[in-house]
């Protein structure tokens, strides 16, 4: 069990190292003049020269990468040239503003997706299943920023139940989190449904039924616990998809968090902010996956005995 966890941690560290290599390549190797990318379009020649020297852009590439890693380890993601502030402190501020929205959106995904997944699996091949599955496929095909606009138009403007944007307490949280929640729920629904159908075909389910277990007991005691593993795996990956949705949704709903910061950075090519955000998201994905892998040890006895 311990060796499993150690293996996972080492694997994650290797992936983290590769992630920083990709981020480094994006920021320093792809652009023709990284210093200008980092300093912005209006930087003076003296500033550029100073940045080149400070970042060691005149050194060989491997040395540059090691320097870059050193800066990352010291928590230095560079300086935003729009705000003229360290990217790390910017991200920290905006992250706190995004957190309630992200949590609400994630909760909405689970609260819509999981019950519907169980429901359609139990009613497989009946009209209710076909209807919900068709709706899920439409939800899956809908761009999240379009759904946001539709909700905003109908429930913010036509029927002014919710505010048109900004963050003013609970009410302003409803529409943006539903926007992300509805699109995201479709994945959970499909995943849980197909996983449950697979489990239901197993012999031990037939045995449980043969022993006279009621339908409710079969589903909740035998099917759901065995079918939930891929859903948990997906929840670990979902954090990254959630962040993509947040950027567009925050823009639509005027929510002043990480998404809004990213939008602004994109408009003005504030590369340090963009790279910092992407790197943060990737690191979060790796960490979440690691947590999920470790959780498996407690959820799945097969891994414990391995």
């Amino acid at each position, binding site marked *: 069990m311990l060796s499993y966890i150690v293996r996972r941690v080492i*694997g994650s560290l*290797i*992936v983290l190292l*590769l*992630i920083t*290599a*990709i981020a480094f390549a*994006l*920021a320093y190797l*792809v*652009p023709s003049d990284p210093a200008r*990318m980092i300093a912005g379009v209006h930087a003076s020649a003296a500033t550029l020269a100073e940045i080149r020297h400070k970042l060691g852009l005149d050194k060989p590439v491997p040395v540059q990468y090691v320097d870059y890693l050193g800066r990352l380890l010291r928590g230095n993601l560079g300086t935003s040239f729009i705000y003229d502030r360290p990217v790390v402190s910017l991200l920290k501020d905006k992250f706190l503003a995004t957190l309630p929205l992200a949590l609400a959106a994630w909760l909405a995904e689970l609260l819509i997706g999981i019950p519907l997944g169980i429901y359609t699996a139990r009613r*497989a*091949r009946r009209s209710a*299943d076909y209807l919900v*599955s068709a709706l899920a*496929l*439409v939800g*899956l*095909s*809908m*761009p*999240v*920023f*379009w759904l946001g*606009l*539709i909700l*905003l*138009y109908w429930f913010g*403007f036509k029927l002014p139940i919710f505010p048109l944007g900004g963050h003013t307490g609970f009410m302003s949280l409803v529409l943006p989190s539903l926007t992300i929640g509805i699109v995201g729920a479709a994945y959970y629904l*499909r995943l849980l*449904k*197909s996983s449950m*159908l*697979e489990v239901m075909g197993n012999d031990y389910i037939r045995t449980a039924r043969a022993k006279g277990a009621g339908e409710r007991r079969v589903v909740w005691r035998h099917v759901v616990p065995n079918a939930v593993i891929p859903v948990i795996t997906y929840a670990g990956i979902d954090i*990254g*998809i959630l*962040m*993509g949705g947040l*950027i*567009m949704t925050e*823009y*639509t709903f005027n929510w002043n968090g990480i998404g809004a910061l*990213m*939008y602004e*950075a*994109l*408009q003005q*090519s504030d*590369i340090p902010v*963009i*790279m910092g*955000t*992407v790197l943060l*998201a*990737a690191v979060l*994905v*790796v960490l979440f*996956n690691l947590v999920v892998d470790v959780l498996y040890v407690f959820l799945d006895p097969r891994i414990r005995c391995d």
Partner: protein
Amino acid sequence: MAHAAAGPPKPLSGRLWKSMRKFPMLYLGGGIILLLSVTAIFAPWIAHYPYATQFRHGLTASGTPLPPGGRFVWGTDDLGRDVYSRVIYGSRVSMVVGVFSTLISLVIGTTLGLVSGYFGGFPDMVIMRLTDAVLAFPYFLFAMALVAVLGPSERNVLLAIGVIGWGVMARVVRGQVLAVKEFEYVQAEKAIGASTFRILFSVILPNILGPVIVLAAIAVGTNMVMEAGLSFLGIGVQEPVPSWGNMISAGLQAFQYAPWLFLIPGLALTLAVLGFNLFGDGLRDILDPRNASR
């Protein structure tokens, strides 16, 4: 075939109808894709006007867009341009970016997956760790960062989406190769001295194509949404060229007084993506009957 001997062969239309009833998703999706392709190819003939023409009579007296109906069937936008024509032309961007970015991912992912699965050992380890790293980056954010560095344009959006979207394909191809490479027909080719290149691309590849095509079909839809998302954020296709994404973005500015500006391109995009998702799902059901109930 056994049942063909029982009577005269059914007419083609009858067989098609039967097949359509058996695989409704595949045909519905295929129909939408066909409609979309025709629209994109023949856009200049289907559209009523050029996409960038700003009509003097395309705005109300107070300068707001015209609602759908009359000379401009789907209304006009803030600059007095015909929304219908722009939506029709917008299909071109979606199709080109969706299809070609998927092809790029397909080439990279399939090659890496084949090499990784077939050779195993060190190349496998390196490729799979790289795949893990690429997959750890949230797809959309990664594309955003790449476009931000390359500069906003349709070509760069296409490249960015294509270059980073191969992770899942590489994994699936590798898994398939591992299953297939021990089969006798592969071993037989090896025994008669076929080159590695031949074994990989003309023996193994055709036998694992099914799941890869399913992934590719769904990827086209996903990539269309990505392009639209990037254009929505202003770093994709640039005005005056219409993309459904930049049209929805313009609709956001006017959503209170001209809702058709975001509704119509969004509907077109959803329908297009739905087409590819239906097609992919339908194909998967045929290839893997265990999933047929999905």
